[in-house]
């Protein structure tokens, strides 16, 4: 009997002990969630890191390690990234697509965001709805639509190839710039411009000297986001590529992955990775520098997509 009483008492204290620890520190570290998060991050990033490492593999395999070499980057007569004519062309084409797309899409998108922010009424709402629709529409649908429009309706104006890819990419990427710039416009409010106008600035002046400088962090972020996203784009670019010479790296990776890839493909993917990461990092640092003291100048603008 004394045993059972003792059991009861100890059980009570342990339970109370657990409860007390809750109340002492209700936000204590949850080990399970921590393990899940660390596991997720490893799962998420380790495969990519391994793919980068395998671009330095000495053998042809991209799944079993055969020693270190740079042959898939440069040096092999035909097979390395920098000596394989097709891969080199693809690399150039990637940037040929990304740079004009980033400039034009952000230009049109910024103007659209400013216009839609100030212009109220039914047509403005319609235009805005159209823009948001292009933002959420699965890329597959837009890709097929653009492919069909360039092969049938516009077939006399512009055939598939670089030009069609530019137009398609700008259509798809414009909305990213609109969303980022509009968020910034909402947080600025109309007061600065009104103050400038009260002090005698003409509309053009208040735009150039007040609004655009205030928007510059958002514009910069948009350029970086659109550039990185265009480098990584695959669906639209593949549908609109006319021939092999208008296939950028992403399409080459896809075709190679379905045939017999060599580590040169890993090297190509690494080039894409490094270029997008570099652009995003530079833009982020500039953004922090110029956006200092301005509301919303934090990582959130880069996470909105």
């Amino acid at each position: 009997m004394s045993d059972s009483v003792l059991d009861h008492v100890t059980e009570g204290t342990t339970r109370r002990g657990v409860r007390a620890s809750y109340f002492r520190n209700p936000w204590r570290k949850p080990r399970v969630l921590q393990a899940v998060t660390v596991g997720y991050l490893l799962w998420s990033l380790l495969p990519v890191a391994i793919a980068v490492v395998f671009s330095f593999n000495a053998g042809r395999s991209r799944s079993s390690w055969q020693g270190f070499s740079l042959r898939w980057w440069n040096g092999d007569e035909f097979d390395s990234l920098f000596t394989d004519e097709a891969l080199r062309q693809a690399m150039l084409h990637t940037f040929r697509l990304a740079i004009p797309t980033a400039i034009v899409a952000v230009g049109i998108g910024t103007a659209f965001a400013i216009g839609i922010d100030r212009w109220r009424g039914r047509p403005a709402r319609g235009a805005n709805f159209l823009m948001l629709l292009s933002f959420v529409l699965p890329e597959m649908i837009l890709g097929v639509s653009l492919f069909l429009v360039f092969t049938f309706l516009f077939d006399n104006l512009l055939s598939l190839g670089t030009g069609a890819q530019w137009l398609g990419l700008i259509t798809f990427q414009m909305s990213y710039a609109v969303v980022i710039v509009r968020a910034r416009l909402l947080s600025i409010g109309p007061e600065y411009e009104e103050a400038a106008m009260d002090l005698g600035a003409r509309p053009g002046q208040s735009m150039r000297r007040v609004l655009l400088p205030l928007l510059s962090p958002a514009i910069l972020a948009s350029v970086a986001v659109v550039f990185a996203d265009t480098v990584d784009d695959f669906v639209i670019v593949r549908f609109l590529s006319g021939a092999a010479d208008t296939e950028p790296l992403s399409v080459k990776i896809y075709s190679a992955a379905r045939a017999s890839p060599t580590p040169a493909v890993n090297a190509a993917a690494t080039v894409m990775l490094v270029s997008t990461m570099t652009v995003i990092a530079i833009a982020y640092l500039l953004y922090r520098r110029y956006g200092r003291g301005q509301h919303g100048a934090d990582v959130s603008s880069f996470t909105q997509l």
Partner: protein
Amino acid sequence: MASAETTAEPTRRRKDGADEAAGRGGAWFPGWYWPSFALPGTLWLLVLFVLPFYTVLSVAFGTVEPLFRSPLPVYQPWWWSFDTFSETMQKFYAGDAVYQQPLIRTFAYVILASSICLVLGYAVAYYTARHAGRYRVLILVALVSPFWISYLMRIYAWQSLLASDGYVNDIWSIFAAPTNWLSGRPVTVILGLVYGYIPFMILPLFGSLDRINQSMLEAGRDLGASPARTFWRVTLPLSKPAILAGLVIVSLPMFGDYYTNDLLGTQRTSMLGNLIANSVFQSGQGPEAGSLTVVLMVIVVVPMLYYLRETKRAAESL
């Protein structure tokens, strides 16, 4: 692709100020001034977004040139014929119904993969928002970085790991016989979809969980609710909009996905996106590609409009 409207934090509420500003703007600017800024973008979308959409319908409801089987789009709606369209539709249910399996598979894979995204993503977002402490920025950067890595590269990386002589089999063979992961296994394709799209789930969830006021949770605890009950009755309901938004954001692209299966699966795991991608480039299959795209549009239109309505509501409540 979380909307800016839900994550942006405007410094001031503009609900009342907006109309006022527009009124005063009218005194300063001619009526065409602001619309002219939006004009290039609007025209662009009309020509390269609305018109292509219409072309899909024209091809789907058009005819085929009898000799070369090349599609003849019909641009006048009153001459639209539904022959080729219904021919394609019959492949979903009539005869040997070759398209039925891919369609069922698409729904099954998307639902399963989205659910896994939600459970796993919620845990990660919750931990990052609530408990990450001084590692918070580091974890956030790691969570965002997949956005700047090409989707194809990420799937290609898994293709290498899952190859028969890859690292996954090296580990797997400790416990069981080596498996050919890339031979059309649903589990590989579903996990590939999860891997590809889960970042889109985590960020809106993180944004929402991060904004939940701590005092709400403390109130729940003070009123005697257990931690589990506080989660169930306070945290979960408050994050419900983000859960729904996240589910829409990950499932929309999954419905149109074909490259994940092309790299990690085979014919046996093909989805609706594969049917479209395969027919687009085949000569004589234009109307079929158009019809299948119309089917895809019908599937995604409801979640898409729901998402747009929710973002609009969130923007208005700011």
